[in-house]
């Protein structure tokens, strides 16, 4: 079996449209130093660095680990670069964990980032190639028809997407690092916001952010001696399926269901809504909350939206299973880092270190990321106890 490993340090930058005060190295470095400070460590204490980000075209720096070696104190150490599309932040955390869980390393640093302001994500995601139709208007254009099909199947009312958009922004207003700070947002405001890709409205979409997230992951012996409470890694799972194949279930992808089943089995979770205290789930468009509630087994098929409408996923409404108390991807989206932020925020919750967005007494949390056309999944479950 895998060796025990735990998150012993977490560092983030604040998230914003444009971090015009730092270089790419400076941005990444800030999260790394914050994670080391949180762990009471320095770069000398780190055995390897695992770096993640989404496509190199966002910053126009090919294989940026090569240039970022010095900023991450990695000269003379192993450096690995992960890229699994939008799930990369989560996948990177999993690869970092495997460095320790394999018994190969004692303590590693993992960092994920995006400095989207250096380019234009829409351009980078839909740069037209010869011989192909150029109609894929960014991620929203891809996901909108899938959302429409979910609405048709479930019969969910229009307010569901609006409610998630409001809930996550109210959560984000409790998180000083969140990009969007909208403490007064209302259902009306979201409903009246510009329709981008029908049925996705502007305020039902994630922002485009600069930012970085970092974690220090240590083995059992070092985690036992950590200065702050560790978040023990209780389960890790990843799944992929092809983007398009005949008969693919796009609304409720099998890769997501299988990945969840795998990570729950490792963590001893039978009923995720009952057994987990909080979840940080990759929801870049508001309708993906009800969709993932079903995909991840928190609600029966077709009924995810009911949990949302009941307030079950709202920290502020005192829901039994808060989703994205940090504000989630809807409040901050530095793409390459977004998955790692989910993983790190799950860890903050079980370390009882999430400030104003702490779920009281959280002991077991899910971190989730997905990417591509929702065909890549990465998940972990972290707990305040070893088992």
């Amino acid at each position, binding site marked *: 079996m895998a060796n025990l490993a735990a998150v012993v340090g977490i560092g983030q930058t604040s998230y914003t449209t444009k971090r015009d005060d730092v270089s790419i190295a400076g941005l990444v470095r800030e999260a790394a130093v914050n994670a080391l400070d949180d762990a009471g460590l320095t770069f000398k204490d780190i055995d390897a660095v695992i770096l993640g980000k989404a496509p190199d075209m966002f910053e126009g*720096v090919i294989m940026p680990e090569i240039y970022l070696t010095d900023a991450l104190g990695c*000269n003379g150490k192993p450096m690995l670069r992960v890229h699994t599309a939008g799930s990369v932040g989560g996948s990177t955390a999993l690869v970092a964990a495997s460095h320790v869980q394999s018994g190969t390393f004692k303590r590693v640093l993992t960092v994920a980032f995006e400095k989207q302001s250096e380019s234009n994500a829409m351009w980078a995601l839909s740069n037209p190639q010869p011989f192909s139709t150029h109609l894929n208007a960014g991620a929203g254009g891809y996901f909108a028809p899938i959302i429409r099909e979910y609405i048709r199947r479930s019969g969910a009312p229009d307010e569901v997407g609006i409610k998630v958009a409001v809930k996550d922004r109210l959560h984000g207003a409790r998180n000083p690092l969140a990009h969007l700070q909208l403490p007064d947002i209302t259902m009306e405001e979201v409903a009246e916001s510009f329709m981008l890709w029908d049925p996705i409205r502007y305020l039902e979409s994630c922002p485009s952010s600069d930012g970085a997230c970092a974690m220090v992951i240590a083995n059992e012996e070092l985690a036992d001696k950590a200065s702050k409470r560790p978040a023990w890694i209780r389960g890790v799972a990843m799944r992929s399926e092809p983007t398009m194949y005949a008969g693919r279930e796009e609304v409720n992808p099998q890769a997501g269901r299988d990945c969840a089943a795998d990570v729950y089995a490792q963590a001893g979770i039978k009923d995720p809504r009952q057994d987990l205290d909080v979840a940080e789930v990759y929801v870049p468009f508001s309708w993906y909350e009800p969709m993932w509630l079903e995909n991840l087994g928190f609600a029966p098929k077709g009924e995810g939206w009911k949990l949302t409408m009941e307030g079950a996923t709202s920290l502020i409404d005192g829901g039994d299973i808060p989703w994205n108390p940090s504000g989630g991807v809807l409040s901050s989206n530095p793409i390459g880092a977004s998955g790692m932020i989910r993983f790190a925020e799950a860890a903050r919750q079980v370390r009882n270190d999430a400030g104003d967005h702490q779920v009281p007494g959280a002991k077991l949390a899910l971190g989730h990321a997905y990417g591509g056309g929702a065909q890549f999944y990465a998940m972990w479950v972290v707990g305040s106890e070893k088992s």
Partner: protein
Amino acid sequence: MKEIAIVGYQQSDCVSDAGALNEVELIIPVLERVFEQVGISNAQDVDFVCSGSCDYLQGAAFAFVLGVDALGAVPPIKESHVEMDAAWAFYESILKIRMGHADSALIYGFGKSSPGELPIVLSQQLDPYYLAPQWVDTISLAALQARLMLDQGKITERDMAEVVARSRRNALNNPHAQLKGDVTADEVLAEETYLSPLRKADICPVSDGASAAVICTVEKAQEWGLPYAVITGIDHIIESHNPGMRDLTDSVSTRKAAENAGMGEGKVDVAEFYAPFSHQEIILTRALGLGDDTSINPSGGVLAGNLMMASGLSRIGEVFNRIVRGEADRGLAHTTSGPCLQHNLVAILEKGEAA
């Protein structure tokens, strides 16, 4: 710690232009052969899959996504990707097996470098403020490195030409090689310089293609009844990005990675280096203190064909091939990334005990 072995390795021919083939069409034939070699149907029969590729080679974001279409990933599989040479996907896969989440793994790398101007494309992996905006290409940086060695009397142009001549001759026995021939050092030296002090022959060609390997626990290899080579050690180390801060005439990180991988614990019969430039092979050989009793780049190395993003995995595959064919008992495979040998990986492979 679990003993892990390689049980299969296949690659495409190194070709200067794969023509109409797209990524998935490059990968499928290689995977078909490695599945056949190991006796499995597709990626469903291994526990983990990891690949290496680079979007900028062909100029498309998420190039690796198409790779999944070659795997038979329905039902969904455990899969990951590094934006690095597939040798690092190999490394990640080993960690996955060591942690007990897999007993077997498929690793593949692919690249179609022909559509772009590779040395200029790769200039954009340099520091984005000081170096990339100057468009310093990778060949020019290597030429600076070669001149340092020449000026310091560490090598002669003839030493470099001899590396080239040996590569061409060795490649005669490599069915996948792009450049091969019975060439002498004198003939190489008779060529004019291209990017002085480098001649064209000192520089690896641009190649399109793919490679794939299957690894598993030794127990699994024995259960499958396959010949195998045990991976007894593997490590990789990156150095400072600033070429001015490094001793470019040595490769400290290769030496340290080889030590950590346990190179010194036995004789090295064969070494396959990822040396895209002739002088770099000399740097690497010396950094590891290898002598006449080690066969260096018997495949011809990457001077005979360089499948970007797959060549590192190919070095491992070439050593594996020689061990299972009984030509070597123990070998070393090396991979590099970044300008002037900035990042280096070393794996040690040994003949497995008969089942």
